[in-house]
């Protein structure tokens, strides 16, 4: 009995050693397999997405898409259709995105027609009723056995984005200069030239291009890019000591000249530069 114990002990040791070796082999094998598998699926043959929706587009393509929607809206006048198209971007704040894009293009002196289209679209979106959210198409993987993407129907008939009846835009006509008013607001700094465009009914009009000129320079802006201040509101920052002339791109005869920053009194405080509020109206 005593003679068998060392042999039994060696057998147990041998089994332990074998188990450790197998565990080590299993661990190494698992890691090697994992690395090869991940390397193949992430690098050599990654999943290719097809049948994507506009929500997955890169930012610059989304910008192009929004401009297309704005351009089509300017022609069709169908805000519901534009809303449905924009809903596909999956942007909860798409109205603000459109407005911001219009402001950005206006600031960079880009295509005035596109700025007008975007401004008009932003205005229409702000006043239209929201459409139900549209779920994006789930991208389907191209390999090895791609699952079928389930599609949530767009809220119109199949599968295209149908137009709806919409009022046609009122064409811009001649504007007349109504008057100017010195705005003394100490919080309104730096001073501005503020412009408000009204139609014949007294309603504010967005998308009107305003040109500001001064000795040695000029610039322009559009009304409606700050809807929180009014649909037909636009403004331009001015500098003290410079004389400005303001006219409308569409109505050059409606011009206001010799506009310069004037000082506002401030009882008990330091005088501050005032702003000018110009009002234009269609007859």
């Amino acid at each position, binding site marked *: 009995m005593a003679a068998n114990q060392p042999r039994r002990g060696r057998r147990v040791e041998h089994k332990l050693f074998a188990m450790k070796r197998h565990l080590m082999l299993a661990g190494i094998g*698992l*890691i090697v397999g994992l690395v090869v598998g991940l390397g193949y*699926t992430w690098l050599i043959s990654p999943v290719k997405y*097809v*049948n994507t929706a506009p929500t997955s587009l890169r930012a610059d393509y989304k910008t192009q898409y929004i401009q297309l929607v704005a351009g089509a809206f300017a022609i069709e006048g169908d805000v519901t259709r534009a809303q449905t198209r924009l809903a596909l971007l999956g942007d909860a704040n798409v109205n603000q995105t459109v407005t911001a894009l219009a402001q950005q293009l206006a600031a960079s002196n880009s295509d005035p027609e596109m700025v007008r289209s975007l401004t008009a679209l932003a205005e229409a979106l702000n006043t239209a009723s929201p459409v139900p959210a549209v779920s994006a198409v789930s991208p389907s993987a191209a390999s090895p056995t791609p699952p079928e993407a389930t599609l949530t129907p767009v809220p119109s008939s199949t599968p295209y984005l149908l137009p709806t009846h919409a009022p046609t835009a009122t064409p811009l006509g001649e504007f007349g200069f109504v008057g100017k008013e010195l705005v003394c607001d100490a919080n309104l700094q730096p001073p501005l030239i503020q412009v408000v465009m009204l139609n014949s009914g007294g309603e504010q009009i967005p998308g009107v291009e305003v040109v500001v000129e001064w000795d040695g320079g000029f610039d322009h802006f559009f009304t409606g890019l700050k809807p929180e201040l009014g649909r037909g509101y636009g403004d331009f920052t001015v500098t003290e000591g410079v004389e400005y002339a303001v006219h409308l791109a569409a109505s050059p005869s409606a011009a206001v000249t010799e506009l310069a920053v004037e000082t506002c009194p401030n009882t008990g405080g330091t005088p501050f530069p005032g702003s000018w509020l110009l009002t234009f109206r269609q007859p």
Partner: protein
Amino acid sequence: MSHTSRFVLIFSVALGLALGIYIGWIASPVQYTDTSPVSLDERYKDDYILMVATLYSEEGDLPAARARLSVLGFDDPAQAVAAATHRLIAAQQPEADLRRGARLASALGVITSEMQPYLP
């Protein structure tokens, strides 16, 4: 190497491989969040083409239309526009849309019998 060791090694490599493929293709596949219009679903491409056609109908600027269509990655944009127009016709979409699609396809050099009724 013993049979058991060999079996353990092969089995664990296979298991690791299967796990890697599962993770790489299903659990955590490469995410293409910044896709291009080339990968858009056909229905969204058709609507994209329709918007380009709408702008073309107003502007008449064919190079601009071509440039807008180029992001969709078609080998033959003219045929793609014609095919999209055919699908719009088959789906009985509004005539204004069909006219715009047909006009753009025609300007790009493709006129088919289906489009004929919608051309000036």
